């Protein structure tokens, strides 16, 4: 299976494009790194690939077919700030199982303790919340995971822990991952291949 972005262009103003004719391709089971400076359009590209932003030009396809706007999206995006990705009025249990019923194995792998499930989001730390966000996104129906700076806000030990788990699960489910970061060392460690946004962006 292939996730492809072809000739993707995007700009908030007509004459000021952030992304121009970007081509990117990601295969199942592949772990691809994307490196770019702050403000270079990394997050925008992620949003376009995951269907969060639809005012762009070009094509995003999954196996040559457009991704349907309704129903479960096989391309899941996980954000940098997990505290924004959870509804503050929901308990963690509901948040975790919003997309699919997360198995006990995955909870254990992520180190999510059962007594956290009864809490409100404001009673957990950012690192803990990010584990929930990842567990929620990694359903059996997910084919591609776009990780937009998902471990930027945690310390290096937690970073290593989280990535170890994610890579294990991804391998098992044969999910393709786009790792977005500006941390070169992290990307070199995790990815089979690396892409620099400035090389594929024609602005």
């Amino acid at each position: 299976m292939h996730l492809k972005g072809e000739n993707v262009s995007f700009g908030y103003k007509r004459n000021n494009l952030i992304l121009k004719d970007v081509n990117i391709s990601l295969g199942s089971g592949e772990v691809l790194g994307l490196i770019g400076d702050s403000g270079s359009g990394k997050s925008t590209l992620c949003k376009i690939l995951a269907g969060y932003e639809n005012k762009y030009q070009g094509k995003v396809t999954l196996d040559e077919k457009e991704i349907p706007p309704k129903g479960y999206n096989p391309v899941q995006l996980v954000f940098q700030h997990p505290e924004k990705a959870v509804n503050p009025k929901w308990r963690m249990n509901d948040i975790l199982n919003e997309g699919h019923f997360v198995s006990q194995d995955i909870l254990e792998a992520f180190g999510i303790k059962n007594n956290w499930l009864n809490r409100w989001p404001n009673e957990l730390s950012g690192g803990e919340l990010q584990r929930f966000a990842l567990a929620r996104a990694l359903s059996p129906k997910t084919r591609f995971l776009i990780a937009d700076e998902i471990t930027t806000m945690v310390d290096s030990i937690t970073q290593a822990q989280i990535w170890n788990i994610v890579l294990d699960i991804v391998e098992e489910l044969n999910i393709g991952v786009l790792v977005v970061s500006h941390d070169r060392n992290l990307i070199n460690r995790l990815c089979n291949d690396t892409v620099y946004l400035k090389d594929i962006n024609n602005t």
Partner: protein
Amino acid sequence: MSTAVVTVNRGLFRGLNLRQKTLLIIGSTSLLLLGIVVSSVFLGGEPLQTNFGSKNLAPSLEHPFGTDWMGRDMFVRTLEGLGLSILVGGLASTISTVLTVILGLLSSAGKTADSFVSWLVDLFLSIPHLLLIILISIGLGGGATGVIIAVALTHWPSLTRVVRAEIKQLKTQEYIHISRNLGKSKWWIASKHILPHLVPQILLGTILMFPHAILHEASVTFLGFGLSPHEPAIGIILSESMRYLSAGYWWLAFFPGLSLLIVVLAFDMIGENLGKLMNPKNAHE
């Protein structure tokens, strides 16, 4: 959270935690307001006795609020007036809330609908409140129906603005986008994600609308555009008592006015404390 812990055990109710204290305040104030309504309904059955033998008496144990120029007990009159005011206020603010919810939902339906709603809100907010109430009330022929409809039709704009802004802000949240990406329908997102944020706002808005509605009802009646003079409304009691103030009968205005103030503050207290309870940020304090 340490600052919160410190404030918990200070002040009036030592030994209770914040949650118990809040519940206690809500319970006792609601009881007070309910008592007023219930007793006014029971008293309403028998007409007020005019007794010219005991007219214009100063407050005493027998007549705690004194008597008026026809010898009627002011305590009973005030109670009945407050009961009527609370009923009118309650009805008016409920109707206002229904209007708010309808318009709030309408504003999220599309761009044209949204600009129509905000135009309507701006229009209503730009006309002086009391003037609008008087106009509508007169237009509908005055009386209780006129006042209720007039108050109901003029109190929705500010709450509608809050609800509209809240929906707008919620729709841009990441967890709403994520929910859509997880395959949830529009209706599912509206009821599960957005509604829980709106319920406290709307409930609080309604309760805090109460005192406004009561005060507007009283002031319209005071000015002579509201309820008819034979009804024991607070506004009527106050406007009648104005004529006797210069004669030194201060209790005719003082006690009804003070009671009105207490009722308004009681509603305000219920609203604020409910707000504290419903916020999950301090659910465990």
